[in-house]
């Protein structure tokens, strides 16, 4: 098992190296990409089963017991998110490959796409699995740098600004992260998370708060918490379609995962976290209102993404086993649903030639399949039963109402935000799928990745999107075992014991 846990990190890296060395063979690149990710997904599944059955899986790299060496840890939370993320990554890769084939033909290789894509996947895996604060920094850098390259792969005059915003803000967060690590080391003398948990407790409470808030800001930038979120709606929508889907699905959730992991493991608290409740309310409302003001489909989705980060923050803020488990479940479903919506948005754009809502219409008649592909994730995001979004939201609500009057009030805001989400999505439906069918706009930029017209949309692109829809439906169908597991994950997270024992041995 300890080997299995390293492979989700090392295999994609190896794949990236191979795809660079053999960059002249597009077929090999595609095969390597898909096979590697499929294997990683399978391994993640194995890890999840094992971690749920017999406790966290730990790999002591190089045979050095933590805290001397770096430990990779797969507990329920990380294995679950790893599995869902990898499935999304795989589906988006299939989509992207077929989009490329549809647009450029089979023979064109891409020098940067496949290697960067695999490196991004490696970074994400490492971020989920690492049990070391500094390695988390490295993982973030691998992931983010790959994302910088991917977002600036097709820089045009309009897109370069989005790339700038994204890169600059992310760099700032990275440097603040490094600063925070230095502070943590200055105060505690260790960077191993399990070891830190013990040493943090020995710090005076006020100083612990300082460190906790510092890490909160650092990860909050990546997770796009209000008021650290402004960069997101300005950058994601401008990325190429599949890339935007991947970012929207994964990156913010990795940020949230890091927040969840560090806050629960390092900074235990006994009652709801008022500051976080406030941030959650702000994030939910400002994101949802932002979505209502947009005319660009991708921007609208980006704002909804921000809004729903607030839902997870709510789970974290309540800070009990139930709510933290609920937040984990919410994150898992959110990864799939956002990626799906962005892929659907890509398909819509290919058909209509625009992302402007007021330029589209009538797709329910001309593309009924697309309508179905949109409706299911849209309902999921809005939390309408019986979708996964409903189950996850219910988990959060239940945890919230049991935790005192503050959380109950915020639960009310969750309801309001859900309604606003629905309003925004209904607007998309009304404007894109209802109304008069309109002719596709002429392609503004004929040689970019978006080729307008149905003929150029490969069936596998639909299949990949449908696959993600299926994943999201599966979360709903298997909500029973899943919620039971996220509940156990929540208990583990707050208990901290199993994690520390698994990493450090019996006497932490």
């Amino acid at each position, binding site marked *: 098992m300890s080997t299995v846990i390293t492979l989700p990190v090392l295999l994609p890296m190896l794949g990236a190296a191979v795809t660079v060395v053999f960059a002249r063979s597009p077929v090999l690149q595609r095969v390597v990409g898909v096979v590697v990710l499929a294997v990683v997904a399978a391994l993640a599944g194995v890890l999840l089963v094992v971690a749920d059955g017999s406790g966290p899986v730990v790999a002591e790299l190089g045979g050095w017991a933590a805290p*001397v060496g770096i430990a990779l840890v797969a507990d329920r939370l990380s294995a679950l998110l790893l599995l869902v993320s990898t499935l999304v990554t795989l589906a988006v890769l299939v989509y992207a490959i077929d989009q490329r084939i549809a647009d450029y033909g089979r023979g064109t290789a891409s*020098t940067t796409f496949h290697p960067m894509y695999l490196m991004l996947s490696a970074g994400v895996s490492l971020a989920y699995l690492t049990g070391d604060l500094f390695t988390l920094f*490295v993982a973030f850098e691998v992931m983010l740098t790959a994302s*910088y390259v991917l977002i600036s792969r097709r820089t045009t005059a309009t897109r370069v600004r989005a790339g700038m915003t994204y890169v600059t803000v992310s760099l700032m967060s990275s440097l603040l992260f490094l600063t925070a690590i230095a502070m943590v080391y200055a105060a505690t003398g260790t960077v191993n998370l399990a070891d830190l948990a013990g040493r943090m407790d020995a710090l005076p409470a*006020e100083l612990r708060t300082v*460190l906790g808030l510092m890490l909160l800001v650092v990860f909050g930038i990546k997770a796009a918490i209000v008021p650290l979120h402004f960069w997101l709606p*300005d950058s994601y929508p401008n990325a190429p379609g599949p890339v935007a889907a991947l970012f929207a699905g994964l990156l913010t959730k990795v940020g949230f995962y890091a927040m969840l992991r560090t806050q629960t493991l390092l900074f235990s608290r006994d009652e709801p976290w008022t500051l976080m409740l406030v941030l959650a309310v702000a994030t939910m409302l400002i994101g949802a209102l932002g979505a209502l003001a947009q005319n660009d489909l991708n921007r609208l989705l980006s704002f909804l993404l921000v809004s729903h980060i607030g839902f997870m923050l709510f789970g974290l803020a309540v800070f009990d086993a139930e709510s933290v488990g609920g937040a984990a479940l919410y994150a898992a479903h959110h990864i799939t649903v956002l990626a799906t919506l962005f892929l659907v948005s890509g398909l819509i754009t290919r058909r209509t030639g625009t992302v402007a809502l007021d330029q589209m219409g*009538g797709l329910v008649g001309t593309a009924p399949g697309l309508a179905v592909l949109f409706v299911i994730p849209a309902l999921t995001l809005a939390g309408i039963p019986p979708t996964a979004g409903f189950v996850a939201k219910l988990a959060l609500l239940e945890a919230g109402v049991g935790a005192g009057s503050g959380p109950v009030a915020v639960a009310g805001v969750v309801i309001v935000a859900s309604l606003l989400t629905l309003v925004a999505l*209904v607007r998309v439906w009304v404007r894109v799928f209802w109304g008069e069918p309109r002719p596709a706009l002429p392609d503004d930029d004929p040689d970019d990745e978006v080729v307008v017209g149905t003929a150029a949309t490969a069936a596998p692109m639909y299949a990949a999107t449908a696959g993600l829809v299926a994943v999201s439906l599966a979360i709903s169908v298997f909500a029973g075992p899943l919620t039971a597991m996220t509940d156990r994950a929540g208990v583990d997270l707050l208990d901290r014991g199993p994690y520390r024992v698994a990493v450090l041995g019996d006497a932490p």
Partner: protein
Amino acid sequence: MLALVLAHLVLAGLLPMVSARSRPAAFAVAALPPSITLLWAFSQTGAALGAGVTESVPWAPALGLTLSFRLDALALVMIILVSGVGAVILVHCIGYFAPDSPQATRSAALLLAFAGAMLGLVLADDLLTLYVFWELTSIASFLLVGQGGERRAERRAAVQALLVTVFGGLAMLLGFVLLGEAAGTYRISEILADPPRGGLVTVALVLVLLGAFTKSAQLPFHPWLPAAMVAPTPVSAYLHAASMVKAGVYLVARLSPGFADLPVWWGPVVVVGLGTMLVGGWRALAETDLKKLLAFGTVSQLGFLMVLLGAGQRTAALAGTAMLLAHALFKAPLFLAVGTIDHATGTRDLRKLSGLRTALPGTAIAATLAAASMAGVPPLLGFVGKEAAFEAFVSEGGARGYLLAFGVLAGSVLTVAYSARFLWGAFAAKPGVEPTAVRHPPGALLTGPIWLCALAGLLLGTAYVLVDLLTEPYSALYPDEHGYHLALWHGFNVPLLFTAIALGGGLLLHRARGTVDALSHHSPVDAQRGYRATVEGVSRLAVAVTGRLQAGSLPLYLGAILVTFVLLPGVAAVLAGQWPVDQLVYDSVLQVPLALVVVVAALALTRSHRRFTAVLLVGVIGYGVGGLFIVDGAPDLALAQFLVETLSLVAFVFVLRRLPSHFTERRATLRSRLPRLVIAAVGGLTVAGIAVVLSAARVGPAAVSAEFVRLAPAEAGATNVVSAIIVDFRALDTVGEIGVLFIAAAGVSSLVLATRYDTRRKRRSGGDEVRSGQNDPEHEREVL
């Protein structure tokens, strides 16, 4: 029971395949599951009227999410509406939709799916199960009202129906969760057995009522229902008369036995219900569109039902259950009759219709029968129900009893009036209006269902014992005060008087329709305007908030991040306030000159306006920091720092060749730079301050450094401990690190080498547009 519900839904998914061959056949197939359900329900009557039939399938037990179903007397009544009336309406659809109608395919599948969802809703014995199906009916209604969404009225109506009902639904969800939390279970039967009380339960009940009111189109949420009349008439008949709008009433009926003793429950129910009954009835008198007339009538009746089922007493419950049944049996055929008229003549405007009494005699008689039941004319079911209603409130007495009794009486007068108006409007020969031509005489498929429902109303009115049997078990949940039973004849008593007053008053009101018409157009408050204002207000708020916050400026975004960083950890650090007492000025003398160099270079950097100078100053800082590393005893670090700094300089110089020599930024005034200066300075001080405080608070020796020193030579075969850490102890970091380099290099070449493949072209707006050369096949080949 779950299997029945799923059968509906699955078949609905498969129905488009049938529609592809024959659309009428699709409706015929769609009518099967409801029929089977009805038969099944009747076969279970004995058990349903007794202990009830239960079934429970766990879904997510950790969340208390279980699909629990229970067939009891109330559910049985509802199934007659949902499945019985549903099947009849689906049969009507066969004749209503043209064989080539594009709406038919969609409608058949959605109607069947809706029937499934509604069935699940009425069978649910679990709040969450109920919620699941509740929202599904909202979605089905949205799609059925909106249809293809080609016309604005349809879109508006669909959106309004969805938003209003989901708003209530979401509020109700929170109410359910609160209720479930207080009761410890979501199982309705268990909650009712031991109803929770307490502060949050009050909130929960208000929220639940919000859901019920929106779904059942109660004041002030009612406008969505008349608006939804743009849907095809059978859809209106099914969703917006017979079944879906009953969901709210049904929910109130479900929960009343547990909570009707609380003023927070019966108070709003009674006030809102009565108000809705009166307002709906009044508005119905002003409508000229027959369908809208019926819609307002439905609103009014829903208010009536709300009062009866939420009042929390046995006789009222008995009356409510009977009226529930009666309403479906008279309102559905009335809608279908309007549909038939519309189908036959092409209009449903009562100002244009004339003389249909003779042209469509069959429809006219059936509709009259139904309308009479609505008006409460004996011996129809409507009369039986209304008698019981009057009896309930009259015998209750007291302020509430009389208020309700007279309120209901006033409502009944209005009901009779609009019933008469409907019949007059639809069928009467009007002076001055030429008789309407019947272009498509209705076939048996259209009129048959109308007759079936109308006759059922008559039959059940006379066979009131059956209805009594059916409604008794539910009303028995309340204490039996008077031993009242449904019957056609209770002797000469006050209720009978009330009925007479209602009939007489209503007919008088109808005769005075000219005056009423003029009056009823002056409505002081317009709930529809309220909905509009809310939606527009939210949109306006969204634009205002977003426009203000999302400024689009990168420096502002970075500033926001920095301010947050200063505010959160910074303030916490100030509050902690543990400045070390033993802080030295310096540890090694050499640190001072090096620090001075770094600081001076850094400060000069802020004032440099030439790019090249700036890069050189950065180099100075870098080498200075390298020097500090040497002083600190980190030769490896220093070596790397010097090498990296040199390479960075080279890279900078490479790029600077192409850039202008000065920064292009306008030279800002001090005033405009001041916020930046302040934020930056405070940020720097915050970081340094926190660093000092935290470094002074170290809780123990470094965790593993001693271990590194011990293990490095023996186990890792290295005397350079740093090197051992990098390639052995923490080799994974190094692998990740080279990964970053790997990515960055690929990114750099992709970006830079693309330039020569960029193409410029003129934009429509006149300016030049540069198209990216990245991904150009030539570019890809070169990057390779």
